[in-house]
């Protein structure tokens, strides 16, 4: 069944389009946040720092933290509270992997081939997880290539060590894989493509808004509210400031992923098809 699910994913255009759009968006985002803004701040282009005002973010791409942040598969802006194109591409790919079988009847063929439906979910999750991890790897490598190109053009040294870079690539890949599986679960639970996409969009777009409003009202973000999918994914990547240590973030993201996959398995098992 795993091979069949892999074939399903690799014989349709959706994952390829999602990776292409995500990578394209990521390159654009990284060029803006990693290349354009530092160049504006440095006065290499534009009217100069003084003319841009005090609100212009201070960006020092020569620092280790800025270079590691630039490696995020979600784009360097993600930690700043916005949702990047790469995140959208990943979750859309996951949702569509879950809903397209319902839309085109493939779920019937899968259930006929494997009446034990939990195994269908396991195969689907394994295949989607592999594609999600591969996507995460592509995204982090795209970010790395953009960073390397930028520091070379700007004549900056690569401050991050190979071990630190490898760590961000590995953690970023894991985070993308987990988000893909969360989206797959939502897709299977929703069944309808439109409903799945809307639910997933609401989840990822509301989270930064809720966190921002909470921060404005309380002056800080309570620790419990950082256990939301995007915050946990960013904490797993570890390039942005987060109060959650990596092991706890990974455990939290893993628990959310497994809980949603469990719900999807239960729904798949109990539903008539």
């Amino acid at each position: 069944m795993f091979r069949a699910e892999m074939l399903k994913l690799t014989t349709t255009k959706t994952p390829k389009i999602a990776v292409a759009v995500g990578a394209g968006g990521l390159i654009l985002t990284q060029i803006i946040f990693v290349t354009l803004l530092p160049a504006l701040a440095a006065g290499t282009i534009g009217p100069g720092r003084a003319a841009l005002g005090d609100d212009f973010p201070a960006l020092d791409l020569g620092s280790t933290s800025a270079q590691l942040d630039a490696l995020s598969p979600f784009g360097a802006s993600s930690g700043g509270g916005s949702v990047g194109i790469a995140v959208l591409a990943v979750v859309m790919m996951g949702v569509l992997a879950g809903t397209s079988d319902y839309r085109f009847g493939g779920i019937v063929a899968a259930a006929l081939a494997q009446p034990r439906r939990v195994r269908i979910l396991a195969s689907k999750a394994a295949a989607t997880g592999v594609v999600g991890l591969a996507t995460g790897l592509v995204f982090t490598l795209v970010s790395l290539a953009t960073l390397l190109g930028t520091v070379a053009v700007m004549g900056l040294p690569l401050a991050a060590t190979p071990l630190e870079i490898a760590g961000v690539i590995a953690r970023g890949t894991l985070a993308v894989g987990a988000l893909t599986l969360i989206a797959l679960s939502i897709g299977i639970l929703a069944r309808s493509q439109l409903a799945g996409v809307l639910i997933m969009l609401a989840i990822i777009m509301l989270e930064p808004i809720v966190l921002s409003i909470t921060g404005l009202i309380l002056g800080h973000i309570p620790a419990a509210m950082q256990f939301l999918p995007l915050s946990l994914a960013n904490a797993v990547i570890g390039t942005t400031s987060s109060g959650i240590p990596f092991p706890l973030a990974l455990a939290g993201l893993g628990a959310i992923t497994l809980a949603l996959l469990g719900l999807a398995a239960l729904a798949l098992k109990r539903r008539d098809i």
Partner: protein
Amino acid sequence: MLASTSRDDGVMTNTDTCAIDAKALRKNFSAGTAVDDVSFTVSSGRVVGLLGPNGAGKTTTIRMLLGLASADSGHALIHGRPYSGWKHPLQMVGTVLDAGGLHPGRTGRQHLRIVAAQTKAPAERVDEVLSEVDMSAAADRAVSGYSLGMRQRIALAAALVGSPRILILDEPANGLDPSGMHWLRARLRAFANGGGAVLLSSHVLSDVEQIADDIVVIAEGRVVADGALATVAGSGGGDLERFYLQLTEGSRSEVR
């Protein structure tokens, strides 16, 4: 006709003549009772036509046979076991439902490769069934460019990938041209003559009349007639259509 093939995932003996055994199946939906106390059997070597008007309960019955929908009561057995009891069910039962569940972006060959992976059939089987349904030339075209008849042929090919002993086909003739119909009838007859069992759901009486050995007529969720085609139709003066209309447009009184 006896089915004596021994398979890797179960034991079939030469006493397995009852390929499908539906017993007192019942299914309620929120809108009402879709299937009510439906019982019938399909023996190996026979083609059984499952007839009934739209909404009569044919598809729900088939879905319960295949474990896609749970029965509120009753049971359905495939060679003595529930469908879910077979380790490789697609090697036991080939099905055509909903025009095969084809993704428009895939080619016919890609669809069959997926089915072969699900069935654990060798890759060469894809070419064999494509040839069998006369779709080799169009196999690498996207399904979105297929006619309805071509989709039905791919759906039939998918049903055959696992070399099953039973075929359960829901309206398989939809969209087939006359030569396709001729091919389908010949293929199903050869399948049954080889010891296979066929359950063929249709509301096109002429199709069923030309191929079926037995018929089961369902109306308003209940079996209103079953038996050998010649016998059942004979009770309607030899006119299947008149007999069918009497049953399905009349009362729910059973004719058994």
